[in-house]
C-alpha cells in the first residue's frame, strides 16, 4: 500500500479533529456547582460510611470480637 502513509496521516488527522470537535461541544457545568454537589453527596452519605465513622467491633466482621464463643 504505497500511498498508505499520506492517506494514513490524513485519516488520523481527520479523526483527531472530529474527536476534538465532539469534546469541545460537551455541555459543561461550573466547578462551584459541580463541587457543591460532590460535597453534598459526601455529607449526606457520611453517616453510612463504615470506614469514615468507625463501626463497633461487634458489627464489623473483620474486627476480632472481644470474646470467643465456644459451642
Amino acid at each position, binding site marked *: 500500500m504505497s*500511498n498508505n502513509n*499520506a*492517506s494514513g*496521516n*490524513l*485519516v488520523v*488527522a*481527520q479523526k*483527531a*479533529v472530529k*474527536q*476534538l*470537535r*465532539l*469534546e*469541545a461541544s*460537551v455541555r*459543561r*457545568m*461550573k*466547578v*462551584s*456547582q*459541580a*463541587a*457543591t*454537589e*460532590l*460535597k453534598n*453527596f*459526601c*455529607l*449526606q*452519605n*457520611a453517616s*453510612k*460510611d*463504615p*470506614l*469514615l465513622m*468507625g*463501626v463497633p467491633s461487634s458489627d*464489623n*466482621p*473483620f*474486627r*476480632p470480637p472481644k470474646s470467643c464463643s465456644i459451642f
Partner: protein
Amino acid sequence: MACQGLEQGETVATLKKETEALKTKLETERAKLQDVELNTLAEKIEPVGQLNIKTRRILKGHGNKVLCVDWCTDKRRMVSSSQDGKVIVWDAYTTNKEHAVTMPCTWVMACAYAPSGCAIAAGGLDNKLSVYPLSLDKNENLASKRKPVAMHTNYVSHCTFTLSDMQVLTSSGDGTCALWDVESAQLLQSFHSHTADVLSLDMGPAETSNTFVSGGCDMKAKLWDMRSGQNVQSFETHQSDVNCVKFYPSGDAFATGSDDATCRFYDLRADREVAVFSKDSVIFGANSVDFSQSGRLLFAGYNDYTVNVWDVLKGTRLNILYGHENRISSLRMAPDGTSFCTASWDNTLRVWA
C-alpha cells in the same frame, strides 16, 4: 488513492492547525468554569475524625507477586491473581482458600468476580480473558472448565463484568478497551482513542452504567459511551502513566492514580480536574485507588509499599497505612464499605478495617 470525504482545501496541515485551535478552545472553555476550588468550598466542613484502620487479615498463599484483587458481591469472598499464573478465590473472613486455578500464562494482571458470585474472569500476558464457572464441588478441575472470551493483540491489563455475568469489559496493552459477550465470546463493541497501553478501567455505578472510564500510558483518562463506542470526554493533566481510574460513588466524578506520584479528581459535568492529591514527600507512583462508601475518603496504594488516605473534599492526607513489604498493585473497597483489600508484590493480600 482513497481520500475519505476531504472538504475543499483540507490537507494534513490545515487539519493540524484546526486540531491545535480546538485544543486551545477546549482549555479556555474549561478554564472559564473554574470559579472556585473544591477544597475552598470544603473549608467549613468538619474535619474527619481519627481513623482507626489497621490490617485485620493477611492472606498468604500466592507464591509470587499478587497483581489484582476483586471482591464478590457477598462482601466476604475475593479473587486474586498473581505473577506465577495462579488465581485464588478466598473467604476473607476465615482466610481460607476456596478455589484455585493455574492459568496457562504468567502475569495474570486482571481478575474479576462475576456479580452472581458463580464465575470469575482472569487474563494477562496470554492476551486473553478467560471465564471460569465456580461450583461447590471440592474436587472440581477448574482449569478444564476454562472458557476464553476476550482476545486482544497485547496483554490484558484490567477487566470487569458489567451489570450481569453476561458481558465483560477489558482494557489492554494494545491501546483499546473492548466489550464482550461471555456466552458467545463475541466482540460487542471496541473502544479506540488511547494512543498507548490502557492500564485500567472502571464502570460507572448503576445509575450511569452505560459509561466507563479508562486510564493509560498516554497520560490520559477517558470517558466512554458503551453503546456507541464513542470517547465522550478526555482528561489530560497527569504527567505520567495513569495506572488506575475509579468512579466516585455518585457517578459524577472519578479519581486517578499515576506514576507521577499524584492522584487526581475529575468532575465529569465540569469536564475538568477539580483536585490534586499530592505532597512533596510522596514521590512514588500510585498504582491503585478506591473511594470509601460516602466518597469522603480516597485510599491509594503506592510503590513505596504504603496506603495513603486522602480527604477528598479538603485535599489533605489523613493517614499513612504501613504493613506491606513491597509495592501495592491493587486496592479494592468491599461492596459494603466496611473494609478494603490490598494486593502486593510481597505475595500477600491484606484486609484493612
